[in-house]
Each structure stands twice: as structure tokens, then as C-alpha cells.
């Protein structure tokens, strides 16, 4: 039951699959922040199972670690990461939420000291509440995850 590949296969790299449709560009922007030279192919609104749609991202020449993948977790908590070597899937793992995010998101509190000082932002992930909340290390405020992912 082989389907036609909507995006060309890669030799070595990472395929992030099952990204909720609409979140692909947010993840792409995170990848570009990390490495603006990364060679990336993006598929948006691809068919996924029954009537669902998904986004998919292929990154050539960069084998994601679980740490690399973790920062995408707020955008695509159910995505899977496939590590490709020599056109074969060598490793597959779900994106998992890290205990904290460092230097990734700006604090939504405009009066937080992190906006005016040369420091990396830090947020602690509070998974035990729904929706998930991130608590700022500096201003101690908690924010729901949508505040971070809404505008990419």
C-alpha cells in the first residue's frame, strides 16, 4: 500500500511528520532561527488518514536530537520525528515536551525584565494543568501554551 510521495525523499536528515495542519510554518520559522542555511522542504495540508490533513517538514543533512525536537513540541505535541540515513528511517520518536524552554520564546509579559536585559528567557513547563502552561523563570507568571504558538 504505497502512496505517492508528495514530497521528495531525502538521503540524510530529519522528517517531522504528523504536524497539525497550519503549524508547519511555525516550526519552519523555528528551524530557520536555529539554522538559517538548513535545506528544508515543506508540505502543507497533505492528506492524513481519513479526512484529516497534516503538515510535514523535511530537513536535509541535519539529524535532529530529541533536544532539537523538543522545542517544536508546543506547536506539534503529537508529531513524530523520523531520522533518515541513506534513505532509510533509522530512528523514529515522538516529539516530547521538555521540562523547560531556554532562549526560545519571548515572555508574553511586556513588563518582564527579560525584555530589557541581555539574558536568555527561561520557562518551566507545567504539564499537570490543561492547557499546558509555561511559567517564566524571571517574572514568575504562568501563560497557556497558545500565547506562544499563536503568532509563530
Amino acid at each position, binding site marked *: 500500500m504505497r502512496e505517492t510521495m508528495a514530497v521528495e525523499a531525502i538521503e540524510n536528515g530529519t522528517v517531522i511528520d504528523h504536524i497539525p495542519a497550519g503549524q508547519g510554518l511555525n516550526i519552519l520559522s523555528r528551524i530557520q532561527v536555529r539554522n538559517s542555511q538548513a535545506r528544508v522542504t515543506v508540505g502543507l495540508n497533505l492528506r492524513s488518514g481519513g479526512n484529516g490533513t497534516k503538515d510535514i517538514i523535511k530537513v536535509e543533512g541535519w539529524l535532529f536530537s530529541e533536544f532539537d525536537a523538543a522545542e517544536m513540541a508546543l506547536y506539534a505535541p503529537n508529531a513524530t520525528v523520523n531520522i533518515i540515513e541513506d534513505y532509510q528511517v533509522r530512528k523514529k520518536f515522538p516529539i516530547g515536551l521538555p521540562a523547560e524552554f531556554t532562549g526560545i520564546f519571548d515572555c508574553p*509579559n511586556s*513588563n*518582564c*525584565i*527579560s525584555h*530589557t*536585559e*541581555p*539574558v536568555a528567557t527561561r520557562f518551566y513547563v507545567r504539564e499537570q*494543568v490543561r492547557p499546558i502552561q509555561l511559567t*517564566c*523563570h*524571571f*517574572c*514568575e*507568571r*504562568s501563560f497557556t501554551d497558545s500565547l506562544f504558538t499563536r503568532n509563530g
Partner: protein
Amino acid sequence: MGLCMTNPLYRKDIVSISDLSKTDLELIVKLASIFKKQGPGPYLQQKVIASCFFEASTRTRLSFETAVQRLGGSLIGFSDGANTSTKKGETLTDSIHMISSYADAIIMRHPREGAARLAAEVADVPVINGGDGANQHPSQTLLDLFTIFECQGTLDNLSIAFVGDLKYGRTVHSLAQAMCHFNPTFYFVAPDVLKMPGYIEDGLVAQGVTFEYVSSLEEVVEKVDVLYMTRVQKERFDPTEYMHIASRYVLTADMLSSAKPDMKVLHPLPRVDEIHPDVDRTRHAYYFTQAENGVYAREALMSLVMNEVIEELEYA
């Protein structure tokens, strides 16, 4: 306290009330009581304390500075951010680096949330948070705890009503969090729009603390040991709405007839009109003593942070 035991607050940064354990809180309260009775020892002799108020706050600054001087310490610093190099564009990080090389401890207030946490990470000496924006003001909570202990003889198993603005008042948030160590029962008396924030309620539920919203002050007066009043800011309401709200959240002397004899009324001050002046003459008024206690609580805090061993606690 065992002999020669290092006190757990020695060289600790005091940034947030959540950094302090039950033991820490009890030590501070105990030492504040001793200092109030017999005066403080010379626990800051030969020490230079930087009092850095990047934002003006007369009450907090004067009570901290009084505490430092009574402990024999000397002070450097500034009382607002207007004439500091911050105005020239220096980062807080750089300012704190510099100040930390001059002083033995830094007391600071800053208009931005998180400033004290950042300073504590930059400084080599202890940082005491005197208020960071709308976030934390731990020394206010310590003086509140000391005052409650003083007027009730204990911190355990007390019933406390918080009245007024419970949404924006960081004082009530921190005090509620700190009291959670002592098995309290809370009553919240606030307009719907000024209820306790969800994250505070979640924290209370997680710690098994009993709390209840009641719609009027009269309902709780007879039930509580402490009535903690706060100011409802007029500007948050239109004038008619404010009149209506004020009538329900203003305490007058005649409302206190059913109160327990030892019930005390606290308020972080300044008050506007939420406590009628006729309450001042009742046995329940305790807010001026509370303000005075700010000095003793800060003396206790500074002594514990700057000294490994406190004699009074060893022999108390």
C-alpha cells in the same frame, strides 16, 4: 535550634516567598519577636548594605534602612531610578555587577517583574527583593506573618478573610501562599471582577487548603481570627459601580460587634476609605502595629541572611 547550627537563610537570596520553607518563615517570625522585645543585636556591624530603589517606595525603603541602621550596618544606594546610570542606558545586569562588588548585600526594588531574580543570578552577594513590579514583595509577607503570629500567638490553624482587590494585590497572593504551610481556612470577599487569580486558587487546591468565597464582610466577621483588608482601586470602576462595591467592602466599627475578642484587622496600607477611621479606636485595629512591625521583620531577615549563627535563636 541546636547549638552552632547554621541558619538556613545564611547568604540566601530572598526573591520570592515561594523560595522560603516553613522553617525559614518560622525562624524569621521568631527572631522578629525577639528583636521587638529586646532590641536587635549588632548583626550588620562592619557591613555595607546597598539600598537600590530603581523605583521610589518610601515605606519599604525607610523601614529597610531603619532596620539596617539599627543592626549597626551602613548604607549606600539611591531612592529612585532617576539619577542612576540606568537612565544613561546601563543594563540592570551591569549595575548589579558593579554594586555587588561594593556592598555585602543588596536590597532592591525595581519596576520590572523578575528584576530581583535576575539580580540574584548576577550578584555575588545576597539580593533581597523589596518589590519587583507587580510580582513579589516577600518582606511585606514576612511582616504580615510576624504580625499575625504576634496578635494570635500562633500561625497554625487560623481562619483568615481576605477582603477587597484579590486579583491585582500581590500582597494577598504572597500571604495566602505563605500561610498554606500552616493549615489555614480562607474566606475571600471580593467583587467578581477582582477575584483571586486562577493560578493562586489552583495552588491552594493542590495543597489541600480550604477556601470559600463569601459575598459580604458581615458574613465572615464572626468566623475569622484575622480580617485582611485591601484597597479597591476606584479607577477600576465607574463611579456608580464603585459606590455599590464600596458599600460592601468597607469596614466600619459597628460591623465588628460580632467579632471574636482577639480578632485583628490588618491592612498593608495606605488605606483610602475601605476601613472607616472609627475602626481605629476598636480593640480589633492592628494595621498601625503591622506597619511598625515592618522594621522588626526586616531586621530579622537581614540578620539571618548576613550571619551564620544568631545567638538569640540558640538560647531562645
